[in-house]
């Protein structure tokens, strides 16, 4: 066993977060930022080591009677998610530097602490190679997120947070039954184990496998929010601060699609093939429903969260179409969507922090007063509608072109989502930004365009979106091995093309 880099990577923000609960005054924010940047540094180090071919996996017995291990490891998808987490966290802290700690809210010190704890738990979620370990952190992430919504949210934050928690817990508890079932099956097959690598050899097929898989899948469907169990997300995002909403949608919801790939398909390939047609249809429903709901939203935060429901539909479509292209596209999308949503939530957050409301109708002609803010929102909205040149375009294109090989009708219908995305993205920009200047709305923006910190926070996000938009190769290459492994696991080959290209 080598040096436990991954353990450290998760522990640094956790320890930092717990430290922040100690009483300290002004230093707390700086200390929190220090820990976030330290984690980012470790994350980059881990990424370099991983791409250099180093084996970073850790495996130590944790609960012996249950066959559970402290087992962490990385694959392409895991690394992409870890990087997303460690990059977004310092940005969120930067953006919330001033906005948290307002009257009626808890201290900003506690906000920083909770965000760091959430970051540490997320890192463990994305690296866990043991089913019980994954479940533990999967559920544990709910607690800091819950308090982030309750303590810093809007007037109805308590209800929204409770709804979020109950939906997630319901999914999680159903998954618990399956987690226990996996244990029982593996114990009956000889030795109880929760290690993913060992469970691959345990027979989890047949009816038992299907029921157990459904338990996992339901939890991930709630998490990723897919129609019809998505209703908690708009409420939670509306009430949360932009920073918490970014983490919620950008990072935490990814656990849903991440889990589908790593656990549903990884543990139950046979049952996953069985459920794929249903999931593809459900994905299509999510794509269209989410887009329509976004078009109908009057609140910008709600609108952004509904666009995510639509985008998660694309990811799920790519996963269950079972082609190398669509799977790579999905995982690439998971990464891009994190940045894209972050850009949207933060840009909307800038507007909300000045105007005091996220109501679309409360704005008008802001572009003339605050051109930089308008520009940011424009870029974010374009990224959301997958404009070529933004990272979201290649990923969405990969999903659809890959899915077309297996489900041409559904893939064709999913383009509706792209059309509708143009409607909601432009609506998000047109009403608040263009048109005659609404004096009442514009007053708070007078001379208060984005400040240096706010601009600086957007730089890495938009940079990543543009970088991967024009040069997607590194990210696609990173996740492709995972996609190939999945294809191997489900024992499906890519559909043969009808017309061979010129060789």
């Amino acid at each position, binding site marked *: 066993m080598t040096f436990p880099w991954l353990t450290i990577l998760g522990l640094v923000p956790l320890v930092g977060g717990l430290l922040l609960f100690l009483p300290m005054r002004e230093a707390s924010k700086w200390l929190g930022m220090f820990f976030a940047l330290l984690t980012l540094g470790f994350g980059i180090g881990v990424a370099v080591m991983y791409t250099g071919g180093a084996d970073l996996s850790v495996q130590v017995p944790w*609960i012996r009677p249950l*066959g559970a291990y402290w087992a962490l490891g990385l694959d392409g998808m895991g690394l992409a998610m870890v990087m997303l987490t460690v990059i977004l966290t310092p940005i969120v802290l930067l953006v919330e530097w001033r906005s948290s700690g307002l009257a009626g809210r808890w201290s900003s010190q506690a906000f920083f602490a909770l965000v760091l704890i959430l970051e540490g738990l997320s890192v463990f979620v994305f690296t866990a190679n043991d089913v019980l370990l994954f479940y533990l952190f999967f559920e544990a992430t709910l*607690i800091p997120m819950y308090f982030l919504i309750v303590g810093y949210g809007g007037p109805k*934050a308590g209800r929204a947070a409770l709804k979020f928690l109950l939906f997630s*817990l319901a999914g999680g508890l159903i998954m618990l039954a399956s987690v226990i*079932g996996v244990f029982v099956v593996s114990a009956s097959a000889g030795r109880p184990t929760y290690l993913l690598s060992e469970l691959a050899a345990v027979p989890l097929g047949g009816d038992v496998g299907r029921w157990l898989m459904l338990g996992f899948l339901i939890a991930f469907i709630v998490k990723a929010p897919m129609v019809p169990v998505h209703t908690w997300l708009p409420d939670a995002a509306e009430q949360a601060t932009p920073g918490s909403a970014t983490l919620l949608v950008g990072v935490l919801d990814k656990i849903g699609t991440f889990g589908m790939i790593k656990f549903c398909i990884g543990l139950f390939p046979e049952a996953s093939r069985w459920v794929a047609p249903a999931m593809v249809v459900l994905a299509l429903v999510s794509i269209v429903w989410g887009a329509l709901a976004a078009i109908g939203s009057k609140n910008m935060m709600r609108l952004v969260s509904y666009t995510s429901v639509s985008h998660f539909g694309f990811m799920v479509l790519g996963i269950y179409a079972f082609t190398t292209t669509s799977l790579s596209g999905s995982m690439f999308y998971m990464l891009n969507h994190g940045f894209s949503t972050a850009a949207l939530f933060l840009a909307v957050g800038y507007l909300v922090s000045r105007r005091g409301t996220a109501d679309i109708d409360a704005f008008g002609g802001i572009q003339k007063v605050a051109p930089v803010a308008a520009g940011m929102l424009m870029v974010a909205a374009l990224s959301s509608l997958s404009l070529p040149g933004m990272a979201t375009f290649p990923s969405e294109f990969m999903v659809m072109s890959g899915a077309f090989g297996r489900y041409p009708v559904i893939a064709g219908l999913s383009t509706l989502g792209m059309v509708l995305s143009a409607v909601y993205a432009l609506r998000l920009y047109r009403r608040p930004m263009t048109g005659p200047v609404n004096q009442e709305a514009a007053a708070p923006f007078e001379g208060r365009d984005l400040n240096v910190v706010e601009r600086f926070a957007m730089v890495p996000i938009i940079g990543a979106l543009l970088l991967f938009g024009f040069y997607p190769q590194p990210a696609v290459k990173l996740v492709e091995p995972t996609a190939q492994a999945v294809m191997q696991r489900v024992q499906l080959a890519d559909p043969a093309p009808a017309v061979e290209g010129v060789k």
Partner: protein
Amino acid sequence: MTSLLPLYQITVPTLEFRQLAPVLLLFGAACVGVLVDALMLGRSRRFRSEVQMGLVLGSIVAALVYTVYNWRVSGGGELVAMGALMLDGPTYLMWSLLLFFGLLAVMLFKEEKLGGGANAFASSAAAIPGSVDEAEADRYRLEQTEIFPLTLFSLTGMMVFVAANDLLTLFVALEVFSLPLYLMCGMARRRRLLSQEAALKYFLLGAFSSAFFLFGVALLYGYAGAFDLRAIDAAVSNPVYGRGLLYAGLAMLGMGLLFKIGIVPFANWIPDVYMGAPTPLTGLMAICTKLAAFGATMRVFFVALGGEAWTWQPIFAVLSLLTMVVGSVMALTQHDVKRMLAYSSIAHAGFILTAITGANQNVPGGQPTAVSSAMFYLAAYGLATVGAFAVVTLVRNAAGEENDMAGWSGLAAKNPWVAGAMALFLLSMAGIPLTGGFMGKWMVFSSAWFGGYWWLVVAGVLTSLVAAFIYLRLIVTMFGQAPARTTFVGDASYWTWIPIIVGALGTVVLGVAPDLVLGPATMLGSFLR
């Protein structure tokens, strides 16, 4: 001489003093405690409670050390006291847990700083509420220091109860541990009428269930011709007569035992008693009584009636389902924190009963047995419960404890540490990961699944959601609402803080590194037959 009196010869019972030392220590200390009350009069009266507390702490710690020592020396598995007690793995496990939680709970008895120099028990339990006598007893700062020996007697009974190897010993132990509890229930300092009502209800229903229990013992004796658990097991395996007596006896005995646990439909006493009793005593009952009753139930049903498992397993399955549902749903409707915790304790009993329903005793691969699962759950639940009731004593208004949930709103703003600890305990009870409660849930459900009751597991996780809502609601109240005006967090001494701190640390440790407890618990998880 002996030859002259052959007819009157009495066999001197052999008693293994080393093995029995933990029980004898507690019993001895209790007897000394009675003498202390009788002899420390006049000026020395003031020091009574200090002396009593010293006796209690000393004897419990010594008994705990002795239990661990005995387990290391003999490793479990011997009959002592002429076959009356069985010292096997589960006995050592349960004794350790009983003593540990008894120690934590009894600390709350001594808390005097909170109430301005008076503990939670009536200054003179015999005085009529509101009478001149009562006012006088309060004025002279009298104390019922009997609570300490009574607690020790009760703990002694519980220890014998979980180790009893024959039904008669079992019955005697049941009475020994119940009677002091009945008595102490009626000794609350505040809301005395409520407290006395609780005591009366508990006593009447308890006596009734004891009658059932005893009748069941008689019927089983009629069937097997013996009180010894293993003899009954032999009779079950090789039946000579029809099984009518067996089934009737099984049902009656089961009712008596399930009453003590608080399984629906025998759980009606729990809310009233938990609410009326002095809060420190509620903490003791919520964990120690449950633990003892579960221990004895498992011993009786696994050892003596294991051969009839296919008869009682389906019944237990239905009962645990009922208990989980009724406990959770009723807890939803409560506005009193103590009453909510009482109903939730019913739900927890239902969760634990799923493990007994599974009845897996020797499983492949060395994973936890039903006994170790249930005991782990009880340990996690106990840590959270002792801590939670300690917090309940802390949250006060001008008249005493504030048990109304409305008064708890915005507690986090007043004292984030107390609210945080309470949130931790509630999350553990809700079964959120990284707390002991989650691992406990995991264990009892896997135990049930091993027994083939997967549907009970599914029902269990769904009711867990309802149960989780109950606790989350209180967390929302504490963290998300405006502070209530009349409530404050009392200024407590270490006697309250120690259980809270130990409970919080233990809850986290059991959630993060369960191997520390699970390792030994798995090793000690099988009854010796």
